[in-house]
């Protein structure tokens, strides 16, 4: 591709139309509290995993909602499910269930793919 000594840069933009948002819809249906997140970041601030590695539940939840699923799938397993985020969430989001549902949804999609 780098015929001329460079390659054409890839889009960084989230293409909302092209993305699959079915995982977010699945979670939202099973755990309605997923919808009331206001992205305050309290979860990420207290996160046990976030103490060791750049892991932000807030970011992952947004990416899920936008259908940017790859990054979520690559990172969601870093969660230890310790539940601190659930305790500090000002909106009462059942974060642990959201994560479990996300894992489940990815699992199902992997199954379907096979």
């Amino acid at each position: 591709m780098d015929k001329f000594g460079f390659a054409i840069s890839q889009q960084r933009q989230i293409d909302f139309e092209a993305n699959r948002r079915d995982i977010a819809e699945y979670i939202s249906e099973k755990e309605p509290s997923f919808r009331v997140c206001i992205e305050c970041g309290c979860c990420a601030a207290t996160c046990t995993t976030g103490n060791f590695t750049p892991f932000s539940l807030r970011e992952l939840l947004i990416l899920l909602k936008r259908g940017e699923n790859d990054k979520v799938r690559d990172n969601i397993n870093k969660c230890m499910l310790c539940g601190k985020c659930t305790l500090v969430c000002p909106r009462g989001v059942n974060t642990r269930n959201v994560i479990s549902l996300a894992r489940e949804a990815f699992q199902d999609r992997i199954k379907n793919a096979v």
Partner: protein
Amino acid sequence: MQFDPFIIPFNIGLYFILIYAVVRSVMWFRDLSKQDKLRLQRGFFGRSFGQSLKEIFMESLLHRKIFKTNFRLGYMHMSLAFGWFLLILFGTLEADIFGSSHLNAPYKAIFFKYFNPDHGRAGFEAVWSFVMDFLLAVILSGLIIAIIKRLYSRIVGMKKTTKLRPLDKVALTSLWMIFPSRLIAESFTSGAYGTGSFLTGSLGSWLASFLPAHEMAYPFWWLYSLSLGTFFVLLPLTRYMHIPTELFLIFARNSGITTGDKAGAFTDIQTYSCSSCGICIDACQLNFSTGITNIQSAYLLKGIRNNENVKDIAFNCLMCGRCDQKCPVGIELTPIRMLRRRAGETEHVEKSILKRYFPDKPSFNPVKVSEKPSFDFLPSSRPVKADVVYFAGCMTHLTPSIRNSMIKILDASGVKYKFIDENGGVCCGRPLMLAGQDKEARELINFNSKLILKSGAQTLVTSCPICYKVFRESYYLDIEVLHHTQFIKNLIDEGSLKLNFMRKKVVYHTPCDLGRGSGVYDEPRDVLRYVSRLQKTDFDNENSLCCGGSLGNMKISYKQKQIIAADAAARLTKDNPEILATSCPLCKKTLAAATETKVADIAEIVAEAIMLPNLMKEKSNPMLIVKEPVTI
């Protein structure tokens, strides 16, 4: 030779169920692990045999435990089980004593009246008939309660999780028909011959007054036999399978077999031993605080038996263990649920009749998202040396006053310790296990184990019962693991912690994972008694409530948790204590938000009670402290 064709259905049913019970028992035995087989053999031929017989009598027949919790329910179960047992016993004796021969085939006892219609006119025979009628009356009274209970639960709109399948309906109908058909058959025969005692005799003579009793009796004897036969044949397909299975369970349990963390024949036996009595539903806080009535253990086991997808049921549970404590059959409900969580989603399969008589072993394949390790980002741990290591736990970091109190106590007691997760540690792994992710949990367990072992400590102290349970059960640490309440108790006993007595009225809330989960009931209460005026509540020890904050439940909303917490707090603070004490950071946080009463961890109460001389050597004073290097 006394014979009539109507006995054939009964005979088929009886011999079928006897053979089936033997075959199924052999299959279960075969599926047990090697150790468990050995245990069962020793148990069966050993001392626990007597214990098992006693238990069978007390529980399977008399239903003592159900009696204890619910008299009406207990009577119902006892009248049906013990009543029927006695009816068979007395019937057999009757056939033996008054029949034409000794050691009769079972049907002769069952249909004794048909073959000996003249029996029971006077004297000893009449007394015996009276006893038989009395037993029948007892059973029928139990049956009436059962029918009322069933109708009532429909009237009040309690939802059944699964619809009755056609075979279930047939089985249930046949069960309900057994005793009424016997009553009517015996009554007609008695009416025709002028025999029978207070029940069959009176009913018989009344029926005979306007019906041709002699002709009417025969079809009802057929019905009686058919009902018995049908019930016996269909029994393995219904929840009444619990009757034979429970016998096996009692022997297995008394031989020392436990559920453990692997599925197997014992789990299977327990699953089939549930009689769906509903006591677990009554014990469940999700039921009595939030009105969730379709996820309790009875439904879980029913779903597993029916091969349904029980994932949502499995995860909607506080894992508090209240039902385990109350289960009259002694099924290890919470461990079975844990196994089910690990299995994740299972597809519902409608099984063939044959498969339902001889089900496959339930598969418990854990959910795997990826083969990659999940936590390879964790840093390699640097060793710290200490006699005692203190692991606060994630939840304790959200309740800094507990953490600070523990530091104060440790400093005051002069123990040489290291605070290994001072700057935020790695989760103990139990939350992942509760979510069914054992493989991932194992990674965290390995990480923490290394950290603890490298410290060379002899004692591990934690403030969190969740951590405590998993440290004890799933970590292979060859050191003493103590919850801080136990540790404080030791310090007081040794005399290294001098405390003032505070005249405060305190009640104690036992955290689920510390109490029912780990069996630690006494030490926290001892410590509290040492420093305060500990009061009783209706929910002490094994009967303690869950605070509602449980990490075990993945499904309920925050609002529902709040309701459970408020309900629990209200019940615990009924007598207006000054402090609602607990020994779990999560319980403290949850309860504190749900009550006006001051909620405090035992560590906080103790830290406040430390005598001044102890405090003199307090090392946590920022002016005196020598900063240690970061430990993680």
